[in-house]
């Protein structure tokens, strides 16, 4: 009788141990995500938790944001350690208007019905183009490091 009782007790302890362990990682994940979402420059961080170890992935603007994500995560209750796999995105480089204008003129030279304008890094395309030629022109123009392509070409 005594053995059965202690066995039952053991089973109870084991089951509560396992049941108690599983949602914990999920709770930590929710808590970390909540802390991170409160800080706008940490947008883009993905949180994964396994056995209390938090792995952060994604791309942030700079090293400060990367460090902040780590300290914010460490401060969350239940977090054992943090694996910081966040990377830094470099800002998009936009070509200056003079160079961009020259390059755009080169690209549209063989499309006499296309008119291109460049202002503040934005290429605007107006006029007409053959439908099958449009992807080719867009490919050429997208490689010139514009900020934006405002394509208003009509296809025929």
């Amino acid at each position, binding site marked *: 009788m005594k053995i059965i009782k202690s066995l039952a007790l053991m089973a109870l302890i084991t089951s509560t141990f396992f049941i108690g362990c599983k949602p914990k990682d999920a709770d930590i994940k929710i808590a970390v995500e909540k802390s991170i979402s409160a800080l706008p420059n940490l*947008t883009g961080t993905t949180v994964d938790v396994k056995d209390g170890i938090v792995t952060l992935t994604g*791309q942030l603007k700079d090293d400060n944001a990367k460090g902040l994500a780590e300290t914010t995560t460490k401060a969350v209750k239940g977090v054992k350690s943090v694996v910081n796999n966040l990377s830094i*995105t470099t*800002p*998009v480089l936009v070509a200056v208007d003079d160079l961009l204008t*020259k*390059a755009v*003129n*080169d*690209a549209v*030279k063989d499309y006499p019905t296309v008119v291109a304008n460049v202002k503040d890094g934005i290429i605007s395309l107006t006029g007409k183009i053959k439908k099958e030629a*449009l*992807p*080719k022109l*867009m*490919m*050429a123009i*997208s*490689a*010139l*490091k*514009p*900020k*934006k*392509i*405002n*394509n*208003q*070409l009509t*296809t025929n």
Partner: protein
Amino acid sequence: MALQDKYKQLTDAASAAGISDLIVREQDGILYIDGTAPSGAIKDQLWDIYNSIDPNFSSGDLILNVNVSIDASVTKVKVVTENSNLNIRKGPGTDQPIVGKAAHGEVITLVNRSNEQWWLVRTKDNEEGYCYAQYLSPEA
């Protein structure tokens, strides 16, 4: 985040197709996808997906800049104009004087590709100058 969702099929395809140095960035409401494709066919495939998500590329919310990687050992290129001759110019730009022509379909020597848009070439008559890279296809 909404933009990344809109073009998720494209970025997923880019990862799956083995685009190297793939960088996906969102800045001021525009998504920038940069990388190098292993072949021209992969680049075309990505542009087909782009065209299907944003017909005729009219939304102005994506800059898809995928280059095709070219083996450094390539020394011959074929002229792939629609049907006309290709101008060879003194310098890299359509404002530069024309120093020669290469025929449609002709295979010429690639000297260097230091300028992405304008490649330095040499014809069989030893005319040297710059051609618009879009009309040149590397020969294996």
